[in-house]
């Protein structure tokens, strides 16, 4: 089912009357059966957006559509959603079986069918053998699976996940995100996934939304967004190690760094923010620009070098074979389409599509 947000806005007012805009005029259409990641730093309004879709938070203005139905005013239980909370909210006094059965007990489902559905769902998420345990006897990953089973057992139209992996350790997180993807594929349910971890969002989402201060920054497929960020915020937010940024001037049609013509650009003369991703640098035999290496970090597959460029410390991630121990200088190149030039005022990218 398609899910559409129209001009969705949430303003919180505290006791002293100060207003905080948590979500600002969000316009997003989520296609049926897709897994969409809501990504942003803490406090950017991503969970608020999710809770508004769930109906637990009332929007200040704007509309939410499930398919063609306007659900903005609908109570949460009438929306047909499944929600997985950040800390799962499994009922501690019920067994896994009772937890998964709970939503069905409130619905008009024959008992035999309910039991079959609980067992099917438990097997689908891989906890079929743990039905008699209490949540406190489960590991974090298992609790997570129970929470997903509980959300899915009533066959919701939309599955909402609120930072579902943030309470798991790093290894389990990798495993669970593959699991979530698999379960979502198998059921083909429209899913919204909130996270602050860009790597997580990129690896799991069909498309993702980056939010900052409640405003949509970009809505695109992960790799698209990574390769052509709309603005400086998205460029900085995606990627680990983060993108290198510094200021540089465009003079007479050339991007000029250190008084040298760096590359030809079709932009009016002004000061711009420049972004270059560490992994886009290449070590060159000839040409390129020579830099002084400050530090070399060998991190297995790649080597990270810190160097000074245009008065700023930048990072480059290069092939380990191209750098020898104790090397002082290196020549680097970067493709011109991998250089991002952002407008100083608006932060919007000027040289990408």
């Amino acid at each position: 089912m398609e899910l559409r947000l129209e001009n969705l806005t949430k303003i919180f007012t505290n006791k002293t009357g100060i207003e905080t805009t948590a979500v600002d005029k969000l316009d997003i259409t989520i296609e049926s059966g897709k897994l969409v990641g809501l990504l942003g730093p803490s406090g950017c309004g991503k969970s608020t957006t999710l809770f508004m879709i769930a109906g637990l938070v009332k929007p200040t203005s704007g509309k939410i559509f499930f398919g063609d139905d306007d659900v903005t005013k609908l109570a949460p239980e009438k929306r047909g959603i499944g929600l997985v909370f950040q800390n799962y909210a499994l009922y501690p006094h019920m067994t896994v079986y009772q937890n998964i059965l709970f939503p069905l007990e409130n619905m008009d489902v024959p008992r035999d069918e309910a039991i079959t559905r609980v067992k099917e769902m438990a097997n689908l998420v891989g906890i079929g053998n743990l039905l008699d345990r209490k949540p406190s006897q489960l590991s974090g990953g298992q609790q997570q699976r129970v929470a997903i089973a509980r959300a899915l057992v009533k066959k919701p139209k939309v599955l909402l996940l609120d930072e579902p992996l943030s309470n798991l350790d790093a290894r389990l997180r990798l495993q669970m995100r593959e699991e979530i993807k698999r379960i979502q594929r198998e059921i083909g349910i429209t899913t919204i996934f909130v996270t602050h971890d860009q790597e997580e969002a990129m690896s799991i989402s069909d498309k993702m939304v980056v939010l900052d201060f409640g405003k949509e920054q970009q809505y695109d497929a992960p790799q698209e967004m990574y390769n052509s960020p709309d603005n400086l915020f998205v460029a900085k937010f995606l990627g680990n190690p983060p993108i290198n940024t510094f200021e540089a001037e465009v003079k007479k049609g050339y991007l000029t760094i250190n008084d040298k013509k760096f590359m030809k650009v079709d932009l009016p003369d002004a000061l711009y923010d420049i972004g270059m991703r560490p992994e886009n640098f290449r070590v060159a035999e000839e040409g390129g620009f020579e830099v002084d290496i400050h530090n070399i970090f060998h991190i297995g597959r790649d080597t990270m070098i810190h160097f000074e460029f245009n008065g700023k410390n930048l990072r480059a991630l290069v092939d380990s074979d191209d750098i020898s121990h104790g090397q002082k200088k290196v020549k680097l190149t970067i493709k011109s389409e991998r250089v991002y030039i952002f407008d100083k005022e608006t932060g919007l990218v000027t040289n990408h599509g």
Partner: protein
Amino acid sequence: MADFIKNVKGFFNKVGTAIKKFFWDVRRKINNVRRRISNFLDKHNLNFANKFPGWAKALIYLSPALIVLVIFTFYPIINSFALVVYQNYNMTNDTITGYTIFGNFLTVITDESFIVPASHTGSSAVINTLIIVFISVPISVLLALFIAAALNSIKPLKNFFQTIYFLPYVTNTIAIGLVFAYMFKTEGGLVNQFLSLFGMDTEGLSWVESGAVYWRSMFVLIFYSIWSSLAFKIMVFLTSIQGIDKQYYQAAAIDATPRNRIFSKITVPLISPMIFYILVTSVIGAFKIYNAIVALFGVTGQPAGVDYNLQSIVMYIYKFIDGSNAGNLSVAAAGSLILFAIILVLTLVQMQVSKKRVHY
């Protein structure tokens, strides 16, 4: 005007800062002195505190409370076990005529008006107490639970209602008892006036005075004990309900859980340890009922001009210390031990029953 408010605020800020600074310095000086004392002790090897083993230190710190407990709690408990084997103990000259194991218990058990209803009153202390316990405790626990749940779900005037329900807790029991006795007066009492509004014939309908039948007086007593014990229970339940993670309710809301199921399947199980605690302490408290009866019916537990008696077990025991049979402490001790045994057995039963129902 705005300037004036600004000046006043500025003044208070300055005073506040000065006070904070003063206490900061005081703390610094105290710490300084403390440090110097400890340095001095270390230097001259006088720091005895470090020489004691852990348990000895614990004992020293616990001693003030322990001394009070030993004098006023442990000694009386042990002493009542000693008293119970004395025969014809005389309090005034501290003499006994011999020892007995079951004699005093037999005296109590066979005594009219303890278990056996007395011929002239038609009621006994144990029966009275059991009626109070088994009627007032379940009603008050359930009522407190519902009121707490209701208080938790209202938004406007929340604090106002919480105060109203908490008032009985801070009010003197005897004072409330007197007010109750006044409310249930035969002539012009509030309750009778209220009933006559509905066309009931309240002429000579007495509740706590002469002419009142046993169950009517008992009703007033139970009503009173429920009401006066409600406040504390509501407070405990309300705090524990407020401590429940809101996400459980959000999850339940998304699953379209009806209100009564949320209450019985989520709220009650999650606060079940508190419900159990309240149940056990209320049963114990109800068995020890004393001043409620005194407040309503006087020290004899017998409303004027009636032929029954509403005394409780504790009142029965107290009679042997300060009443018609004063001085026979051995019988009082036997009565207390029987009360203790009843409470112990009931508590053990409750613990057994609750094992499956309480979720920690």
